[in-house]
């Protein structure tokens, strides 16, 4: 009897995880549907103008607000690209060094230090980006005659890249370590040097897994909020130039929801539509990324 009761309690606890997922999906879809009653899905996904500030009077210009999310998607992609340009090479090369060259002592010092980078709260990175990196970049740009916006995509992306280094390096490390030594020994036996072995044998074997890790990193970058809220711009600006200020999906969610709190206005509902888009994008990246990583971690077991 007690056995069955406890079993039931345990089962219901495990169901909570499902309820959370259902709750997220339901709340996002429900509110997003209400949003799409006033704004068409087509305009939201393909419109290039984003100005959610509705005018006070109905006859003014821009009375209804414009909800074309393309500038936000482009801005998010731009900042994520900058972040990846920083974190992918640094993360992968760190992982190669740590797994192939480093002594055990160095490993035991460097790995926890890298983990610290992952453990620092994102709001701290945001402060750092806004107070230290952004002014420095702006001054640097001015000194070589380039105009760098104070809230440039570059500053936010750089700092975000630093944040993601440990994610990429730890996954790459796992995957490189999972490549069996017989491959290395075979290559060395044929006369290849150590770096030739790594470049021509180990990396090709590990590459798909590392790519999966990078997908997970992209998902992190896309969903990251505080760094971009504090260091990226607020106004939607459709550009591919990383020196200009752009805004992202997460920034707009925060902007739309931390201002006025009328729950039914299309402004707040738009935030849920953005949230739904964000959830779908990161979900797809996560599922594909984690499947690949899992496969290549266990490939040679």
């Amino acid at each position, binding site marked *: 009897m007690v056995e069955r009761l406890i*079993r039931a309690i*345990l089962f219901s*606890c*495990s169901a909570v*995880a499902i309820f*959370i*997922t259902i709750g*997220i999906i339901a*709340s*996002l879809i*429900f*509110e997003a549907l209400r949003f799409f009653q006033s704004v068409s899905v087509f305009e939201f996904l393909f419109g290039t103008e984003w100005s959610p500030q509705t005018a006070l009077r109905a006859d003014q210009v821009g009375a209804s607000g414009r909800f074309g999310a393309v500038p936000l998607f482009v801005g998010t992609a731009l900042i994520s690209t900058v972040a990846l340009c920083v974190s992918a090479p*640094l993360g992968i*090369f*760190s992982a190669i*060094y*740590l797994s*192939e060259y480093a002594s055990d002592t160095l490993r035991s010092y*460097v790995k926890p230090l*890298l983990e610290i*980078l992952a*453990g*620092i*709260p994102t*709001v*701290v990175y*945001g*402060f*750092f980006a*806004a*107070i230290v990196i952004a002014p420095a970049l702006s001054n640097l740009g001015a000194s070589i005659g380039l105009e760098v916006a104070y809230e440039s995509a570059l500053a936010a992306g750089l700092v975000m890249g*630093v944040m993601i280094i440990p994610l990429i*390096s730890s996954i790459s490390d796992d995957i490189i370590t999972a490549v069996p030594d017989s491959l290395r020994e075979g290559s060395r036996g044929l006369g290849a*040097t150590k*770096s*030739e072995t790594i*470049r021509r044998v180990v990396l090709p074997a590990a590459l798909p897994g590392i790519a999966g890790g990078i997908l*997970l990193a992209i*998902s992190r970058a*896309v*969903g*990251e*909020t*505080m760094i971009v*809220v*504090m260091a990226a711009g607020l106004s939607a600006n459709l550009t591919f130039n990383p020196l200009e200020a752009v805004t992202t999906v*997460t920034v707009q*969610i*925060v902007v739309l*929801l*931390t201002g006025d*709190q009328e729950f039914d206005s299309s402004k707040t509902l738009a*935030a*849920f539509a953005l*949230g739904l888009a*964000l*959830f779908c994008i*990161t979900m797809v990246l*996560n599922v594909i990324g*984690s499947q690949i990583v899992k496969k290549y971690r266990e490939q040679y077991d």
Partner: protein
Amino acid sequence: MPGVVDRHRGEERFRRLGLAAIAISMSFLAFFLVSIIGTGYGAFIQTAIKIDVDLTYQEVGLEETFTPEDLAGVSYRSAVRSAMRTLIPEDLGRRESRALYGLIGAGAEFELRDIVLAQPELVGTITSFWLTASDDVDLYNKSGLTEASAQQTRLTDKQIEWYSALKTDDRIVKRFNWTFLTGSDSRDPEVAGVWGAMVGSFFALGVCLLLSCFVGVLTAVYLEEFAARNRWTQFLEININNLAAVPSITFGLLGLAIFLGFFGLPRSASLVGGMVLALMTLPTVIISSRVALQAVAPSIREAAFGIGASRVQTVFHHVVPLALPGILTGIIIGMARALGETAPLLMIGMVAFIADPPTNLTQPASALPVQVYLWADSPERAFAEKTAGAILVLLVFLLMMNLFAVILRRKFEK
């Protein structure tokens, strides 16, 4: 194929590339910590000015026999102001007087009131007090007193002249800024502190701990020890892994729509903040608890079954206690993540200006990372220092939690 010499040179180059990547990452970390500490340590130091306050009966308008209410009703502002005037011998006009009062902090009169209320015997005397200076004086005093730093603060030439006079008079010191640790948010940087935010974070983490601990550990126990391997458990597993990677802001949207919108819980409350954080940390707790349970040797279970224990007895009397250090490590790491999380709290309205620490779970509260965010947004220069100071407090807490987790793990491995 290039020659052997070239190939070996390439060898060294490749190795250095890896080393450089690590060095760059490490120098980011070092640069980052140095600049945060360099900016933030100033928040723990404050400048105080010594003024001689005339508390004679006539001056403060009290009879020889006064009640505590009378004492609380005294205008400490004018007492502070007249004390400031006695410091400067010259006659000042209205505007100049105001500039003079600008040297002392906005909270000075309250400091004075608290001291006098605690020591009523001071009434009737002229006593020297060290009271907090204004944020501009504080910045100037801490910045090395150069021409450039004077321009960065908003002090006028006249104020700097007075400051120098007070300084040569030994009336200006730097002291430890207790207010920063005991005060709450304020519009005036010199009286702003992180205590209110710490209390808010503490409440939210408490709720988060209770919920995610209970649900998370039991879920892990179910999945590892009871559930059959079937579609349902596979689905659960995939689900939990996905939840772990969902952007944190999504949990905030869930909290806004369901906890606030549907259940009508109060906005900005640490209760809701804790609930949202619990949803976010749940996957972390489940995953690490499962790892800890998996690490318990099967022989333990077999031995328990062998002497006739039921499954529930086996699990709760033998397996869970053995896995406990590992489970605790996971919980602490989850809590550390929750402590640093900001975005979901913004969604449920924990971004308001909160001047008093919350006294219960449903009161509007702030949280440490949210306080960092709010201060970082503030245009006043003195707040940059406070922001970095609040970050240091946050990092110290995170460091302690992680150290604790490491110590637990070490013990566990033995």
